[in-house]
């Protein structure tokens, strides 16, 4: 299975990449996905989305999912 991982804004800069691709054997929690993708510790206030919907850190990503990590939003 393939999972696409995206980092935005300050997290992209901190992690040093905008995107990564994982091919795990089975579903993984977003916590595990972060750890597999970067040695950087996940900041406490990190927000997560799967397929462009907010989810929590324990959500399990599945084949084909687009996972995103980003800091608190500051638009408007």
């Amino acid at each position, binding site marked *: 299975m393939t999972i696409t991982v995206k980092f935005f*804004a300050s997290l992209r800069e901190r992690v040093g990449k905008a995107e990564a691709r994982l091919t795990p054997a089975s579903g993984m929690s977003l916590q595990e996905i972060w750890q597999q993708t970067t040695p950087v510790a996940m900041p406490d206030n990190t927000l997560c*989305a799967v397929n*462009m919907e*907010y989810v929590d850190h324990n959500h399990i990503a599945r084949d084909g999912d687009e996972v*995103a990590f980003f*800091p608190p*939003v*500051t*638009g*408007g």
Partner: protein
Amino acid sequence: MAVEIHAQAFDPWQAMQHYQQQHITPGKHGACASFIGSMRDFNEGDDVKTLSLEHYPGMTEKYLEKICDEARSRWDIMDCLIIHRVGEMHPNDPIVLTAVWSAHRGAAFDACRYLMEELKSRAPFWKKETLKQGERWVDHNTQE
């Protein structure tokens, strides 16, 4: 209902006027409430020279549409418009416009404010400021 992300400067007043002419049936609405957020040249006590706004293409539009749908389900409104700038901008540039048309004023006021509050708390946008001393990410939104 429309949600637009603009990579270039936009004129919020002209946008509202055009949207109304094209989408709002003449004579049916009695109220249009709107909010324009603009770039200030100061924040947290520092002078800000430029502001760079990043978003998550796809998710941002999805959440703005979701927020409009929620407003339409909560209040008796006729239409709404959200425009948000992304990219590099300068002091005084409009950043965001939310506008709501309805028959009566209460729904327009309530829904317009709802759009802004929800946009600020849920829509994936991130601001980075350029100060004299360098760049910094804005890590939280300003007070309401």
